[in-house]
């Protein structure tokens, strides 16, 4: 008897539309388009009832209210059944006293994992790695972060990236290394000589040179 081959693995790109899906989750059947109009952090974890993933789920749950204030939802995923997800989130609430408030995709057929390139065959062919996709209100992929199986994610960094992207969209600026909300932002370099001259004369900017200017928001 022939077995069904795994779905093809594709890798989304920053700036490309997020691949649409319809999936069974711990909160019912959800489509990507259900999140349209808000930001979405789609993240995968290797398996339910594993210690690093449990610490991550607690960290994401702690972050969730802040994300909602920023019009952003969370959506988890692993190659486990919906019954496993239900049992695990109930276990986390009972043993760790943390309520998991976001849905988790039960991706048993690896369909969504394949669409988003969440399986790293060199690490594991049966588990998803720790992938993070930040998707904007128009359902365009804006950031991708991959962590290996053994390294738990830094949710503060994920929040920082979301804050940076929303700041960029709102103000037409970029953010420098290690930027935090409240820090100065980068003015994108001028594209013409005329713009460079105007920039040099702008007293509101702090410029080291014509191409390197910052300002406070």
């Amino acid at each position: 008897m022939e077995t069904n081959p795994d779905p093809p693995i594709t890798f989304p790109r920053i700036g490309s539309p997020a691949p649409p899906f319809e999936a069974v989750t711990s909160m019912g059947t959800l489509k990507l388009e259900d999140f349209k109009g808000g930001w979405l952090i789609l993240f995968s974890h290797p398996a339910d009832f594993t210690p690093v993933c449990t610490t991550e789920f607690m960290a994401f749950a702690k972050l969730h209210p802040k994300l909602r204030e920023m019009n952003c939802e969370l959506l988890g995923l692993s190659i486990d059944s919906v019954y496993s997800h239900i049992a695990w989130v109930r276990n986390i609430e009972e043993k760790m006293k943390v309520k998991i408030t976001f849905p988790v995709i039960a991706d048993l057929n690896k369909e969504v994992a394949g669409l988003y390139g969440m399986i790293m065959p060199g690490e594991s062919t049966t588990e998803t790695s720790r992938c993070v996709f930040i998707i904007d209100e128009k359902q365009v992929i804006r950031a991708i972060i991959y962590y290996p199986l053994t390294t738990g994610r830094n949710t503060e960094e994920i929040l920082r990236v979301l804050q940076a992207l929303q700041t960029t969209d709102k103000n037409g600026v970029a953010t420098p290394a290690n930027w935090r909300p409240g820090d100065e932002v980068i003015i994108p370099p001028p594209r013409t000589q005329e713009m460079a001259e105007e920039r040099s004369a702008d007293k509101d900017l702090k410029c080291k040179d014509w191409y390197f200017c910052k300002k406070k928001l």
Partner: protein
Amino acid sequence: MACVKPDGSLTETAKVLLRQLENPLNAEEIASLVGQPLFKVRSVMRELVSNGLALELEGGFQISSKGKEKL
């Protein structure tokens, strides 16, 4: 089904949503009224419509006669 239990009765979320739908409302309005995230409202409304418990009209969603019977 996330809105209909195995015994055919409605989940609490489904009841709460259906009770708002005497007049047509869109998903954003429903989410705001019931304090549920928009993605969840969209998902449950899709199921309510596919089960004939709500109608999808131009102005939004409205409870169907079948939905009224179930409440």
